[in-house]
């Protein structure tokens, strides 16, 4: 265990990177999920088609493959575009941190789309009609009527999505993000103690997941506080 202490710094920095990726990806996930769910529930056949294609592809393709497509694909595209402007350019790519956050947010966003869709459907139609009768614009209806009522329905499943999100960050070392897996890889190369090092990684992830589970439980109590009396 004394070996681990020497690498505590590396793991702490790695954990911080995981946390940053998590926060960025979480925000993006919510955005993709809300757009996707709205598209799936819209009257436009085109929007529904695009949203269905999105969820089918991103839920059926391995996370690792999505990550590789976005990271290496974007690099090839950006370099190609840059070469048109300035032929001397050799290589341009999205920084691994952003490519990775984008990739895992798109994956989990596909799951969130389904969750949010179900939650929006769980909000009484009468509420939306009442909002319209009061003269609220579609935007106001979305933010003041539908959103505040759907999130508590989405919460339990969304808690699982957050766990997926944090666990997917482990893949980011593959494209060179310096998170805890990366720290463990380096520590292993120096100390030749792979079991110990990856165990530390497992413990850190378990701690993150435990915090998420606890937080979601607290939020669920808060979200359902108006139902306390009826139970």
């Amino acid at each position, binding site marked *: 265990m004394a070996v681990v202490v020497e690498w505590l710094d590396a793991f702490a920095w790695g954990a911080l990177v995981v946390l940053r990726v998590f926060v960025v990806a979480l925000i993006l996930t919510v955005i993709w999920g809300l757009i996707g769910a709205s598209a799936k529930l819209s009257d436009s056949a085109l929007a529904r088609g695009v949203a269905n294609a999105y969820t089918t592809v991103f839920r059926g393709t*391995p*996370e690792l493959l999505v990550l*590789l497509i976005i990271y290496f694909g974007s*690099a090839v595209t950006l370099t190609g575009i840059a070469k048109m402007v300035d032929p001397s350019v050799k290589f341009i790519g999205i920084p691994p941190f952003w490519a990775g956050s984008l990739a895992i947010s798109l994956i989990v966003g596909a799951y969130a789309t389904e969750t949010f869709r179900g939650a929006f459907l769980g909000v009484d139609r009468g509420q939306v009609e009442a909002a319209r009768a009061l003269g609220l614009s579609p935007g106001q209806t979305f933010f003041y009527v539908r959103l505040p009522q759907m999130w508590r329905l989405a919460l339990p499943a969304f808690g699982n999505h957050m766990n997926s999100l944090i666990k997917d960050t482990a893949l980011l070392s*593959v494209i060179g993000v310096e998170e805890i897996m990366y720290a463990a890889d380096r520590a292993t190369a120096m100390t030749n103690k792979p079991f110990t090092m990856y165990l530390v990684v*497992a413990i850190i992830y378990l701690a993150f*997941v435990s915090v998420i589970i606890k937080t979601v439980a607290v939020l669920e109590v808060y979200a359902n506080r108006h139902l306390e009396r009826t139970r």
Partner: protein
Amino acid sequence: MNFEIALVWESLPKIVEGMGLTIELLLISLTLGTALSVVLVLMRISGIPALVWPAFLYIYVFRGTPMLVQLFIVYHGLAQFEFVRNSVLWVFLREPFWCAIIAFSLNVAAYTAEILRGGIQGVDRGLHEAGRALGLKPYQRFLHVTAPIAIRLSLPAYGNEIISLLKGTALVSLITMYDITGVARTIVARTFAPYEIFVSAAIVYLCLTWLIQRGVGLAERRFGRYVRR
């Protein structure tokens, strides 16, 4: 930047060669993992603290950590111990294939146990009582009343778990194996055409996902044949 559709057609046959390994990993770990999950869920619902707690802890740990970390602990990690390297099992444990099977099976077992537990909890209490009234013994009640219904209730989530596992098998490309993703990565390293090759690989995975969905759909119809109308 243009997308060369010809490259997709060229690479697809090679990528399909990697499909054999992907399917092998999927089927073996699914079978072993599901078998283990039955033991786990029985422990979990047994009501005996000495059985409940280990099962709870196991499920919590394996669901709470990334599959990649689990795979690396088995593949890279176990070699740290001399007694492992000297044991008879080393013949298996030094092979990436068996390490992947072990890690995936243990992982699937945890998720499936939780799915089955949900299914068992979903069985109407009244059926239990009816079974007791008919004089069925506890194991008969479980086998003939609870289990068939619990399986039907668990099937949709189990189908998602199979798809999850299929996607998880792509991780073996990180431990030197040539599954669909592994083959795709070697072709990309040679041609540097990530879009075409990785998209081809994604197409193969989507076909497999579709097949699994169809299969589970058929199973759901079969197990639920008495529920309709």
